Every structure is written in C-alpha cells, then in structure tokens.
C-alpha cells in the first residue's frame, strides 16, 4: 500500500489552504501530521479521503489516481475518525458502530453474523460495549469519541485517519485508543495517519512526522530526526527543549512560561 501526493494544492475560493504538498506514505507506518491551528492539516485529510478534490496535483493510492476509485471503494480503504461530532438523531451506540460495516455490504444486504462479531469484538476493545444500547446523543464527549473510533475500526480499512481524534479524551483513553491503532500498524501492517496537537503524544506513537505550516509541508521524516528544537521553533513559534526520555522511551518536548516567541 502506498499513498502518493504529487504537488497537491487546494484552496477555499481564493484562500489557499494546502500548497504544493508532495508526500509518499507507506503501509505499516504510524504517521503524525503536526502544525499550528489553521495550517491545512484537516484540509489535507479531506483531500486524502476525497471529501474534497485537489485544485492541482494528483493523489494516488496503489499507483492509481484517487479520482478513479468509486466512493465505496475509497470507503473500503480509508476510515476517518473526525474531530468534532454532533449526531442529530438518537441512534444507539451499536447502530452507529454498525454503520462502519456499510461500505462492505450490498445496498439491500443486511449485516450478517460476521459483521455482528466484528462489531462486538471492536466495541469490547474500545470500551464502547458498556454503553452499546445507549443513545449516542446522550453520551459524554469521551464516550461518544470511543463509539466513533470503534465505527472507524469496524470499517476494517488498510488506512486509518485520525483527525485530532483524541482531543477531547482524557489521557488514559487517549493512550488506550492510540495503542489500539498502533497495534494494528505493527501486527497487521496497517497505515495510521494521525493529525495531532499534543507533540509528546505524537512522539510516543508516530514513527514518521509531517510538520505543516501555512498549507505547506515544511519538515518531514522519521520522528527522531524531525523532532528537534529548531523545527519546533520554526513551525510552532515556541522555544522548547527536546530530549530523549528514558521512561517514555521516546523523544519528549518541554516548554517553559516564556517559550512563546513574539
């Protein structure tokens, strides 16, 4: 599995959001996309799942342009856990998770035993089983996010995209969900592309970092190489100390009160 973007650009009207992005993403890797607010991370994700179409450049999956895939074929290859979530009607958690099986079902086919089994297994893993029959509109933000995460895992795609998927979760749930995704990368050779705000959490899980600023990819490479004091300062405009942490077994970043560079 490879995803390739070649000189991809996209703008909202005249406002450019993503400029000239060229990347090559491989299977069995956990990618992190980092950058300040409004730098085009979410737009890039929208382009990858073809929710939006690039103004220029080509995105290809397995060497074939994304535009040549049907929507359903894309839905069998990319799953998305979005950032905010409003469900307007009182579906039960289980009904929402089951929707992740739709791309695999014929239009008039109903979920079978195997679909039910997968839903059971993944709702157990994500801890969503305890509220499977509750209405999604009544769940807390964290519970709801676990249901949405389960829905994306049930989609059973080679690529999983997390768009600030854990931003409203406590640290325990965030680590547990990222571990689930990480396990799929290591055991099953899946690809995870995670848009993240928390640099330290990214450093724990991501093997490869893509740093964006003003719609452009400014640095990308293996986490160890990209994560250093000068890249942090140039991308986020903060001074930071980056060090190898023994407990985390990864690079970690710390700031101080006067880190902000005016």
């Amino acid at each position, binding site marked *: 599995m490879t995803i390739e973007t070649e000189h991809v650009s996209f703008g909202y009207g005249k406002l450019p959001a993503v400029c000239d992005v060229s990347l090559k993403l491989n299977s069995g890797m956990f990618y992190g996309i980092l950058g300040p607010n409004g730098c085009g991370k979410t737009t890039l994700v929208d382009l990858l799942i073809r929710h939006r179409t690039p103004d220029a450049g080509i995105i290809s999956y397995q060497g074939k342009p994304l535009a040549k895939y049907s*929507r*359903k074929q894309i*839905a069998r290859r990319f799953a998305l856990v979005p950032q905010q979530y409003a469900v307007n*009607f*009182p*579906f039960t958690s289980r009904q929402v998770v089951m929707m992740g099986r*739709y791309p695999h079902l014929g*239009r008039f086919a109903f979920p079978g035993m195997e679909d039910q089994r997968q839903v059971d297994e993944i709702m157990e893993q994500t801890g969503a089983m305890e509220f499977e029959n509750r209405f999604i509109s009544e769940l807390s933000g964290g519970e709801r996010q676990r249901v949405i995460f389960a829905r994306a895992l049930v*989609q059973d795609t080679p690529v999983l995209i997390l768009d600030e998927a854990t931003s409203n979760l406590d640290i325990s749930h965030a680590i547990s969900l990222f571990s689930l995704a990480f396990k799929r990368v290591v055991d099953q050779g899946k690809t995870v592309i995670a848009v993240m705000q928390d640099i330290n959490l990214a450093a724990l899980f991501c093997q490869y970092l893509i740093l964006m600023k003003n719609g452009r990819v400014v640095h990308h490479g293996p986490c160890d190489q990209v994560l250093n004091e000068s890249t942090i300062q140039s991308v986020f405009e903060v001074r930071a100390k980056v060090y190898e942490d023994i407990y985390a077994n990864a690079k970690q970043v710390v700031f101080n009160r006067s880190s902000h560079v005016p």
Partner: protein
Amino acid sequence: MKRIFQSLGPDIFWQVLILFIMLSALVVLSSGLGYMRISFSDVLRVVLAKMLGMDSLLDGVNSLFPVVIAEVRLPRILTAAAVGAGLALSGVVFQGILLNPLADPYTLGVSAGAALGASLALWLNISIWGIWSVPLFAFIGSGLTLMAVIYLASSSAGLSSGNLILSGIIVSAILSAGVSFIKYMVDEQVSVIIFWLMGSFGSKTWSDVWLTLGALAAGLGICGYFSRELNVMALGSRTAASLGVDTQKVRMILLITASLVSAVCVSVSGIIGFVGLLVPHIMRTLTGPDNQRLILVSIFAGAILLLGADTLTRAVLPHEIPIGVLTALTGGPFFCYIYRKRQTGGIHDD
C-alpha cells in the same frame, strides 16, 4: 418477506402488520360512514364484488350502495390515505436531510409555491386543462419554487441545511405576499381561493387516487433506495463521505424527490399542515431514528392519521371543517405536548 422485516429490527414486522390492519379497517369503516350509513358487511361485499368482478355478491344489497362506495367514497378515502402517506414520507426525508427534527415537507416553500400557482389559476379563471388546471398550476408553482430555493441555497460548498431552511423561509414569505395580493385583487371570488388553500378531499376521483398513489410509489422507491445513506448522513457530511456516501448527490436527489411527492399531494388536496411534521416525530419514538424502518412505519401512520381526520370532518362532525384547519387545530397542540415532553427529558431526540 418476513425475514427482511426482521433483519430491520425485531418488532418492525409486527408494527407494519398492525398498522396495515388498522389502515384496512379504517378504510372499510370509513366507507360505511357518511350521509348514507352502510353496514360493515355490505361494504365488504361491495368491495369484494368490485375487486373480484363477482356481481353475484351484490344480491340483496341496495343498488345505490355500489355507486356511493365505488364512485364517491373510496376515491376520497384512498386519496386521503395516499396524501397522508406521501406527506409523512417526505416529512421523514426532510427531517433526515436537513438534520432538523422541526423540518417538514413545506420547509422548502413547496406549499407557498402551490398556493400561489393555485391562486393564480383561480384568479385568472384558467381552465385550459379542465378540472386539472388548478392542480397543475399548483404543481408548477411548487416546482418553480423548489428550483428557486435550491438555486438560492447552493454555494461552492454545496447545499447546507441552514442555507436551505433560510432560503425556504425567504421564498415562502415572498410568495405568501403574492397570494395575499391576489386575494385582495379578486374581491368576491376570494372564498374560492381560501377554500382551496385550506385543503379538501371533497369530489376526488379515481384519477386523483392513481396520481397520488403513483407519486407515493415512485417516492417510496427512491427514498427507500437511499434510506441507508440517509442514516449515515446523520453523522455529518464528512463522516458520511468517509463511509462512501456522495452526500451532495444523495441530498439533491432526496430533496427533489420528497419535494415533488409533497407537491403532488398539495396540488391534489390543498395545504394540509402538521401531518408531515408530526408523524415522523411520533414514529421515531416507536422505531428509533433508523430511516429504513421509520419510512415504512411513517407512511402507514400518515395514511391512518389523515384518513381518520378526513373521516371525522366528512362523516362525524355536524359540519364539514376544512381538513387543513382540522389537522392544524388538533396537530398543533399535540405537537406542543410532544415538544414540551422532549424539553423535560421524556423523549430523547436532540
């Protein structure tokens, strides 16, 4: 057949069966009621004789009964049921697409367009299409309104629910002013227009029945085909896209389908409010928000509700009240009750 129903949910087969039996019973009951009372067994004999072509069943039945039932009452009854079903269907679809439980078939100004079209035809005494002139003008009015609203609401990002609702309100307001203007201009003829606007199933013929049933069947086919997409779209357009749904396309198809179904209903019967709003609401508490089940159950409930209301005004009340007034007078307070109950946490529907 039963297996398909069961895979939709454990109770759906029984729910649909019970509603179907209720509707059939109401049709038979209603056929017997009216100025001329006809006994239950005579109604059954007439209906069976007509359906099976066995005139021998009619021995001993008053010779007027077959005419009254087949030519007067049944067309009206079946039109009322079909219109109720059509309004409920498009109500479900509108609430689903606009992600707003307060949307109804008239949200996009279909009723205002029909009202203006019908008023114009009545004002100018247009009769080039005979008795179909007013309904056709009403339908054309609805269609043009729909096109205007969609044009007004569309942006580079596609059709958003907020834009659609706002455009519908604006266009409706303009058209309503047009209707008021015509009412003012026609002087003594104004009662004809007012009577049409308030809705009626009086003097419906078999052509009305086939027309509304045809629109209902086509609408049901299309909406049923996309009902799973409609479920997914409740998760938001971005998630729906990631689940393989072309939200812009599906939204447009369903909007046009639901609007045309309600436009046919309005053209045939005049403006009948609250059925399309109320029925999906009540049925959602029964089936949950799954649109595949909701559509099935709602069309029967809509048919029962509107046929019940029409029978009430036709045969039970001492004076016939316009059906649109009756549904608003009874449906409105009931909706307030449901809405209030939801506010206080009785029904989870936010």
